[in-house]
C-alpha cells in the first residue's frame, strides 16, 4: 500500500508513496504511521514534522503536535514521583534490572582500564597470585613446614590464593567505588548499587585468568578433580557475596569517613592471616571450627580446596556458619547502603 524510507542527514524524513490517496483515509494512515514511527525509532515526532506525501501533487508537512491529542501519549510515558524517602526503603532491584546495561558497561570499563598502559597487561592477573604462592611455598611450605593436608604445598596455597585474590580485589575496589565514581554520582541518576556491584564483578576476569594457571598446576601434580568441582560456582558466588557485603558497608562508610580508605589495607592484610590461605583450617581444633566459620573466607577457601582438589574433607558446620554470616552481612549491607545512598551526592 505504501512505502516509507528514511533519509538520514541533518534531518530525517519519511517519504510516503500512496497509490490510492483519499482525503478521508488520511487520519487513519497518519495514526498508523505515528504508531509505527514511535515503535521503531522513537522519534515519530521528529519524523512527522517532515512528512511529505508525494505521488500526487499534494506535498504536505504536518507537525505531529498539532495532530496528537495530548492525553494519547501521556499514559505511555513513564511516571516518576520524586519525594523524600521515609522509613524502610525497598532495595530497588527492579530499578537495578532496568540499568543492567550500565552495570555491564561499568564492569567492562573497569576491566578495560585496569591494565591500560601496562607493559605486562593481563599477565598481572597471574603474576600476583603466582609470586605470593612462591613466597608462601618457600617460607611456610619449606621452612616452616606447615602441614597441607597431603596436598603439594604450592597447589595447596595457590588454590586458596585464587578466591583470596578475588575477594581482596573485589573488597578493595568496591569499598572505594563510590568515592572514585563521585563524578558520576553527583551528576547523573542511576541505581547507586550499580557502582560497587560493577567493581566486584570486574574482579572475575582476573580470577578466570589466574584459574588457567591452576588447571596447569593440577595437571602437573596429577590431581584429578572429583564430582565436587560442580559446587565450585557456589564458592565463587560466596566469595563475591562476602566481598560485596563488606564492600557495601565500607563504601557507604567511606563516603562519610575517608578513614576507611586507610584502614582498608590493614583490614585485608589482617584478614589474610585470619583465613586458611597459608595454612589449613585443620590446624584449628575441630570443636572450634564452626566458630572459625565466622570468618566467611574460611568457609570459602576450604570449600575451594575441597571442590577442586577433592582430597580434604567437605567443610561442614564451618561452611554453614560462613553462609549465614555472609547472608547477614550482605543483607545488612544492602539496606545500609540504600539508606545512605540518598545523601551520597550531597556528602561525597
Amino acid at each position: 500500500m505504501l512505502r516509507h524510507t528514511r533519509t538520514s542527514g541533518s534531518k530525517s524524513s519519511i517519504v510516503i508513496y500512496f497509490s490510492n490517496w483519499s482525503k478521508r483515509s488520511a487520519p487513519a494512515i497518519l495514526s498508523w504511521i505515528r504508531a509505527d514511527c514511535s515503535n521503531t525509532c522513537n522519534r515519530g515526532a521528529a519524523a512527522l514534522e517532515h512528512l511529505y506525501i508525494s505521488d500526487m501533487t499534494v506535498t504536505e508537512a504536518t507537525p505531529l503536535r498539532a495532530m496528537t491529542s495530548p492525553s494519547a501519549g501521556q499514559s505511555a510515558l513513564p511516571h516518576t514521583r520524586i519525594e523524600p524517602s521515609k522509613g524502610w526503603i525497598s532495595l530497588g532491584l527492579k530499578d537495578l534490572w532496568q540499568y543492567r546495561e550500565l552495570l555491564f558497561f561499568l564492569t567492562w570499563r573497569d576491566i578495560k582500564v585496569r591494565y591500560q598502559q601496562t607493559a605486562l597487561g593481563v599477565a598481572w592477573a597471574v603474576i600476583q597470585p603466582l609470586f605470593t604462592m612462591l613466597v608462601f611455598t618457600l617460607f611456610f611450605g619449606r621452612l616452616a613446614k606447615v602441614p597441607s593436608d597431603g596436598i603439594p604445598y604450592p597447589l595447596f596455597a595457590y588454590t586458596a590464593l585464587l578466591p583470596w585474590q578475588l575477594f581482596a580485589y573485589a573488597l578493595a575496589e568496591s569499598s572505594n567505588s563510590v568515592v572514585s565514581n563521585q563524578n558520576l554520582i553527583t551528576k547523573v541518576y542511576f541505581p547507586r548499587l550499580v557502582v560497587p556491584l560493577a567493581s566486584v564483578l570486574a574482579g572475575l576476569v582476573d580470577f578466570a585468568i589466574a584459574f588457567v594457571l591452576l588447571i596447569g598446576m593440577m595437571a602437573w601434580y596429577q590431581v584429578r578433580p572429583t564430582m565436587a568441582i560442580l559446587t565450585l560456582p557456589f564458592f565463587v558466588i560466596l566469595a563475591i557475596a562476602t566481598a560485596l557485603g563488606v564492600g557495601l558497608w565500607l563504601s557507604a562508610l567511606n563516603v562519610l569517613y575517608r578513614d576507611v580508605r586507610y584502614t582498608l589495607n590493614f583490614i585485608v592484610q589482617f584478614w589474610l592471616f585470619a583465613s586458611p590461605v597459608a595454612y589449613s583450617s585443620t590446624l584449628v581444633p575441630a570443636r572450634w571450627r564452626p566458630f572459625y566459620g565466622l570468618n566467611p573466607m574460611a568457609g570459602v577457601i576450604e570449600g575451594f580446596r575441597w571442590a577442586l582438589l577433592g582430597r580434604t574433607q567437605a567443610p561442614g558446620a564451618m561452611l554453614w556458619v560462613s553462609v549465614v554470616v555472609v547472608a547477614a552481612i550482605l543483607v545488612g549491607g544492602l539496606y545500609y547502603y540504600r539508606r545512605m545512598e540518598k545523601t551520597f551526592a550531597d556528602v561525597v
Partner: protein
Amino acid sequence: MTDVAIRCEGLAKRYRIGERESYRTLRDAITNAFTSPHRLLSSAARNSSNAREDRNFWALKDVSFEIKRGEVLGIIGRNGAGKSTLLKILSRITEPTCGYADTWGRVGSLLEVGTGFHPELTGRDNIFLNGAILGMRRFEIARKFDEIVAFAEVERFIDTPVKRYSSGMYVRLAFAVAAHLEPEILFVDEVLSVGDAAFQKKCLGKLGDVSREGRTIIFVSHNMTALQRLCTRVVWLDRGKVTDTGDARTVIDHYLQTNAVANLESVWEDGLTAPGNERVRLRSVRVLPQTNSGEPITVHTPLRIEFSYFNFVPETTLNVSMLLHNLEEVCVFVTASDFAPRPAGLIRHTVEIPGDFLNAGSYYVNMIIVKDASTGILFQNNVVAFEVVEGEVVGNWYGKNPGAVRPRLNWRSEVIEAGGLEVSTAREQNT
C-alpha cells in the same frame, strides 16, 4: 494532568552547613559521641533550636511550578539561587527534603557534559559508556553512533584514547553523546559556555531542533540571549524561591532591571588596598553622565568615563583599554586610549561615549592598563556599571529595541519618482 511533563509541589532542599564542605573523620564522630552528652546537658537550657536553624541552609524553599509537554522552560537567577539544586532534584541525583515532583517521561540531563568519560578509553568506547551512563540502551547508541561521531567531528580519532584529544574535541564528543540522547525531558545547565563559537552555534541549533521535536526542556543559563531565543517561559529563582515566572521576555527584563547594579563611581582612597602592582595602582574610575544631576541616563545621554591611576615607573608607555559589556555578557565594544610615555604620578584618561549610541540596558566596564601597547599589566573587571533607560519615544514603537547598540546613523530618504499611480493599479489589475 493531560499534557504536563513536570509538576513540582513545594520542593525544598536543606543542607546542613559544615556537613557539605568537609567530610567527617571517624575521630570527629567518636569525639562528638563523647562530648555531645555533655553538650546536651549544658546547652539544654539555651535555645538550641535557634542554633540549629542557623546551621541549616535552605537551597530551595517551597518551589512549585508546572511545565507542559514540549515547553522550553528557562531558569534564571544569580549564582547560588538554587538553580542547580533544582535540576539535581529533578534529575534524581539528590533527594528533596520536603515536597515532591512528578515527571512524565524519560529524563536526560546535561548537567555536565562528559560525565563518566574515562581518559584511558577510546572515543568509541566512551560513546558507549557515556551513553549507558546517560540512560541510553546499547542498540540505541549503536544506531546513532555514526551520527554522534559526525556531529562531534572526530571521525579520524574515534579509536584514540580521549586523553589524547584536544579539549575542544573532548567537549564536542561529550556534547554529541548527550545531544543524541532522546529523552522526553531534557535538562541543560550552562553547556553553551563550551567549545568555540561555531560549535556553540551548532549546539544552540541542536537544542532548537530538540524543542521542535516536542520535547520538554529545562534550560539553566546566564546567557540571556540564548534564553530569549529558546525559551517559551522562564522561572526566576532567588535565594531558593520562585520570584517570578511567566513569558520569557517579561521575566528576563524584570530580572535584568532588578539586578542592574548601578555603580557610577569606584574610588580607592587607600593606596595599599587599591588594585594594582609595583608598576601602576588604580585611583578611581567614574562615569559622568553629561546631563543635569539626578536625571537618569537615557539612550540620548552622552557619557564621559574617567580612569585615574598612579604610575610608579617613569617614562613607561601606558594606555587604558576599556571593555564595555552588557548584562547578557556580550562585549559591546573595546576602545583604547592613545599610548605615549607617561611620567610617574597620577594619570587620567577620559573617554566619551556619545549619546544616541548605546541601547537601553545595563552595562559594566572592564579595564586593562596596557604597557608598550602590547602587554596588559593590570586587569580589573567590573570597575563601574551603569544603566541606560529609554529616552523619549520616537515613533510608535514601545517595545525594547533589539541589538547591543542603537546608534543614530545618518539616513536619507527621498522620492525617486513622484506619481506612478498608473503602474501600481495596473499591477493590481494583473493579479
